[in-house]
């Protein structure tokens, strides 16, 4: 496979292609016919079909990375480097490491499924909707690919706008409030990050006088005073913490999740939340190791992470709205990711990466299932259901299985991530790891209680007795997720191996540099 990919020069064009396909695709979608020709006034299915096949194409194109990626090479792979805005020193530099690889595959895997999830639930302005989904994809992939901080910032903001519209136009009743809250809440900290990026770019100004935003150069420079590094770290960390979202910056999430259409929630939870943790891994930690390893800073973040785990679970438990319950469960899961990242052992970081992937799959699947039942009954309130496992056995089997993966049943993906995070964190922060481990109890409590009230108990509401079960499209959209849950639970080794080099490099860089910045920087330049 690798030989074939080499022969077509795959590594030279794949990353730009992944960014361009959705952009061109969005134009194609906008050119699709508006209405069907039969005069019924129903919107044409052409837009969704074009979008679906484009996302399939995107997935297939990205899939080559799985084989072309060399796990033993910890440097950038499939790199592209083009000048973009020379007078500002901004370059169009792309590249992947093991971490970005898995995030890209997660993104391209989730996107076609989210189109299938929107298949019948999005009925108005379908062309704009699918065009926005495509633009959003370019933005998200760009964040994972960018090796230039300015370029990264551009993608970071690009993905905000389509999501704002997706929530604001196709969302639920309080969509305007939710979309504005989402936008402003995540935008404001980003501005602080922009200031930090510009400051750093200006610091790097060479003899030519133009600033430089190159990630590699910034990594090697190490000219920041520890005071400046702390402030810059704070700016980055704030932007990322809101995106994660970390307790107590999480309150935009339940609103955005609940009001977003199904695909919006899937993408938000599945991919966009990972931007925050990815940001920590890519930028906040390696660029400012001294600040990140500052014992006080580290302890504050770790404690917030553990609070997030427990708090998210407890608040999820009491939600009357199933979608909101899943939203709060995200706060809990992302707490595990933050714990793993800042515990900074190889196992904990690898675990954090696994939780990022798993959360994308399992929570994505949960949102799809909520969407499926919402389409039938037009309510998300848990109390509106009860006993429907009798009526919709396939749906029940799927929801039960996905819930089990979300609570980390061994043999499913959820366990691998949480286990690695906890066993790794225990090495550096045993007390926090033990407290975090109680999260497995609360997770079982809130999800099992919820599915009991939805699927089990007496079937006592007449309106629930004739709910149709999954149709073939819905089954087709859930089966890949189920397969991924089992695969990552039983045989995660190929994924772990691909990420190990990057995770190890990160741990070495951050823990190594914190003590002796100069020494490591010298070796960094040598590399």
């Amino acid at each position, binding site marked *: 496979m690798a030989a074939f990919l080499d022969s077509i020069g795959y590594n030279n064009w794949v990353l730009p292609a992944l960014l361009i396909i959705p952009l061109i695709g969005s134009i194609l979608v906008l050119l699709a016919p508006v209405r069907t020709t039969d005069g019924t006034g129903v919107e044409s299915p052409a837009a969704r079909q074009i979008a679906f096949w484009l996302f399939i194409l995107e997935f297939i194109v990205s899939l080559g990375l799985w084989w072309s990626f060399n796990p033993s090479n910890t440097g950038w792979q499939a790199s592209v480097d083009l000048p973009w805005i020379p007078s500002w020193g901004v370059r169009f530099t792309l590249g992947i490491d093991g971490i970005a690889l898995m995030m890209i595959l997660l993104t391209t895997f989730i996107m076609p499924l989210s189109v299938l999830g929107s298949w*019948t639930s999005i*009925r108005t302005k379908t062309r704009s909707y699918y065009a926005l989904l495509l633009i959003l994809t370019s933005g998200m992939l760009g964040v994972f690919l960018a090796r230039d901080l300015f370029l990264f910032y551009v993608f970071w903001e690009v993905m905000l706008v389509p999501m704002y519209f997706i929530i604001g136009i196709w969302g639920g009743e309080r969509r305007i409030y939710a979309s504005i*809250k989402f936008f402003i*809440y995540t935008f404001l900290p980003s501005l602080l990050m922009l200031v930090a990026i510009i400051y750093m770019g200006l610091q790097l100004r060479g003899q030519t006088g133009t600033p430089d935003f190159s990630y590699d150069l910034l990594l090697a420079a190490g000219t920041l005073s520890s005071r400046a590094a702390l402030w810059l770290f704070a700016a980055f960390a704030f932007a990322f913490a809101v995106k994660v979202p970390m307790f*107590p910056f*999480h*309150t*935009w999430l339940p609103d955005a999740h609940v009001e977003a259409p199904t695909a919006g929630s899937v993408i938000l939870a599945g991919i966009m939340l990972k931007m925050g943790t990815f940001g920590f891994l890519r930028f906040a930690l390696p660029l400012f190791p001294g600040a990140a390893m500052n014992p006080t800073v580290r302890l504050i973040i770790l404690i917030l992470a553990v609070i997030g785990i427990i708090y998210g679970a*407890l*608040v999820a*438990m*009491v*939600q009357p709205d199933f979608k909101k319950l899943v939203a709060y469960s995200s706060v809990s899961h992302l707490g595990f990711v933050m714990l793993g990242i800042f515990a900074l052992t*190889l*196992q904990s970081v*690898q*675990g954090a990466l696994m939780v990022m992937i798993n959360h994308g799959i399992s929570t994505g699947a949960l949102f799809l299932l909520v969407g*499926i039942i919402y389409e*039938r009954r037009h309510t998300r309130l848990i109390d509106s259901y009860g*006993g429907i*496992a*009798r*009526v*919709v*056995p*396939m749906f029940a*089997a799927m929801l039960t299985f996905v819930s*089990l993966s979300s609570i980390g*049943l*061994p043999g499913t993906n959820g366990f*691998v991530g949480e*286990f*690695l995070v*906890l*066993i*790794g964190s*225990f*090495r550096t922060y*045993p007390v926090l*790891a*033990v407290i975090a*481990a*109680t999260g497995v*109890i609360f997770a*079982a409590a809130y999800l*099992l209680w919820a599915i*009991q009230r939805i*699927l089990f*108990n*007496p079937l006592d509401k007449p309106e629930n*007795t*004739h*709910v*149709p079960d999954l*149709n073939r499209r*819905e089954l087709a959209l859930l089966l890949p997720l189920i397969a991924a849950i089992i695969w990552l639970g*039983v045989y*995660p*080794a190929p994924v*772990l191996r691909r990420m190990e080099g990057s995770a190890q490099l990160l741990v070495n860089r951050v823990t190594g540099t914190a003590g002796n910045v100069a020494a490591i920087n010298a070796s960094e330049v040598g590399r």
Partner: protein
Amino acid sequence: MMLLQAVATATHPLSGSVAEWVWLLPVLPLIGFVINGLLSLNSAHFGPTDPSTAGHHPHSQSAAEAPAISHAEEAGAVGDDHHAVKRHRFAGLVSIIGPGVLILAFALAVMIWQAMVGAHPTTPFIQRYFSWMPVGDLQIDAAFQLDQLSMVMVLVITGVGALIHIFSVGYMQDDPGYPRYFAYLNLFVFFMLMLVLGANYPILFIGWEGVGLCSYLLIGFWFNDKANADAGKKAFIVNRIGDFGFLVAMFMLFANIGVLDFVGLNAHAGELATNGGLVTAICLFMFLGCTGKSAQIPLYIWLPDAMAGPTPVSALIHAATMVTAGVYLIARSAVLFSLSPVASLTVAVVGALTAIFAATIGLKQWDIKKVLAYSTISQLGYMFVGVGVGAYVAGMFHLVTHAFFKALLFLGSGSVIYAMHAAYHATGSHEDAQDMRNMGGLRRYLPVTFVLMWIATLAISGIPPFAGFFSKDEILGSVFARAQGSTLASASWLGIPGNYLLYAIYAIGLAAAFMTAVYMTRMMLYTFHGPNRTGQREAENLGEAPWVMTGPLVVLGILTIFGGWLNLPAIVTEYVPLGPGQVLEHWLEPVVGAPTEHIIAGAPQTPATTEEFLIGAAVIIAVVGILFAWLRLKPDRLPTAREAVPETGFEKVVAHKYYVDEGLDRAIVTPTYAASRNFLWRIIDNGLIDGFFVNGSAALARGFGWVGSRLQSGNVGIYAWVLVVGVLAMLGALTLHR
């Protein structure tokens, strides 16, 4: 096939033998699960292609699917359960596959056992399949380990499991969820075999939580009843509390000795010996896991509720196999526990307290399955006493014999309930088919079940020569011997000298044995003796179950009679030529021999006269217990459940299980829920974080904007006023400054 990559086993005596097929053991029930699961979902109907209108316009469905749905509506229910009265469409196929995979697995297990008997390996046979979680110095393999300990468990699981599967064919035959039932049951066996075959703690943990999952699914099998769904959920969550302890134990092991596999543990455990506190902590966290899975104090509370599941499930999962996993785990970790006298004594103390506590509750239960549930908790307590005092063989011995006689008791009660249910069904009565006050005199209608259950009752009470006598006696004898001299006797537990503690445990064990005899005799008296209380018309419909159900009972009865032969004590074989003695002890020697030696190092040999005295005392206690119940209880005068007067005073407290559930509910469940809802969500999340800070800052920004917009109204008058105020303020400031 990837599964066959046996690595580094070339020199093992079992390599090349039938033991190479050990991977097939769990795969067989897994195949059963997949097929039965698909058959179960097969009766589901696909929904319409566009579901968004389905709720409002059921008739707009496509023509092809509408008839199927309306047909189901006419049947009165939809989906899995829609053949409410007639047998499931695939009942025949499921009846072959469900028990079939278990019988095949048992046959394979017997062949492997034969190979082991021949080869007599002293080291475990390891089969490594692939790398599961390789992360730096953490290398967790998907690997199986076959040794004498796991072999015993495999034989019990597949053997007793096969019998219970066969019994289920009759017991569940009319259930609309028939394929789903066998799917879950097969899945359970799969996970249980993973548990006992796993070569490291994480693989064991897959099985550990997996059996908990199946228990959850099967307790809540009839999920449309809220009580059942509640019980399933409770079992899962309480087990998760234990699993938390297990997880922490694994973290501590890895952080300190860097291994999680059993071979590595045996090699490196010595490094922990210098740090007694650490070993104790690891063992205690691990034991927390055992208290969850094996229903010991304080996490026993889920098991009585678990009786909501179908009775064969109670027999297989909640008596014979899953609940004994904790005992297995300690035997498996014997090398760790033997290093920590404090942890070992804790295990024994908790076991003893559980044994007597549950026995007292068992005295006052009316539901036949609840009696057996508390009896199981109590017997599990004995097993923990055994492994706690370092008598790992005795603990495992009782595990095996208990699997025989308790499975028999549960299946027997299943046969009783089946008969009662059929009788009530025939007359349309809605009485409780499990309440002993509604039974009575069943010996005339269920003679086979009656005889077999008496055998099991004698066994559990400790009457020789039945299985339970030997195993229980060996546990109590070991406690006594350890008290006279061992590392445990010379240790101190919470300031109490170890030997005093062990004598106390011995005394508690005897007292619990007395109560066991009492409550079991009580159950037999009320169920089978005295007059019949079902009612005239119901009694005409009472009868023995079909042979597919009584057949397994008979086999279990034979095992209950002869199970003791597995490990006859030397003191018996010396005088009575019953056969070879201490078979199980020799069999398990390679696995638990060294840790046992470590605990009894330098202990004096118990004199034969003492041993004879101990055995005599145990038998007398059991006989007195049975006679006491026989003479005191009057089944002739027992009122039915409907007529019964409620208990008062202490009896009421015991009958209500000391109000532990209610107490926990008030102390933990309700406050957690209320605090999460009213404080965390309403006040902290919505009020403080979102309301005050987030929306507050937004409001603040809006406020500034409002003020700003007022200021830029274009009204020159206001500009002039602002100008004047500003000038005055500046002048004033300058003046004051000077």
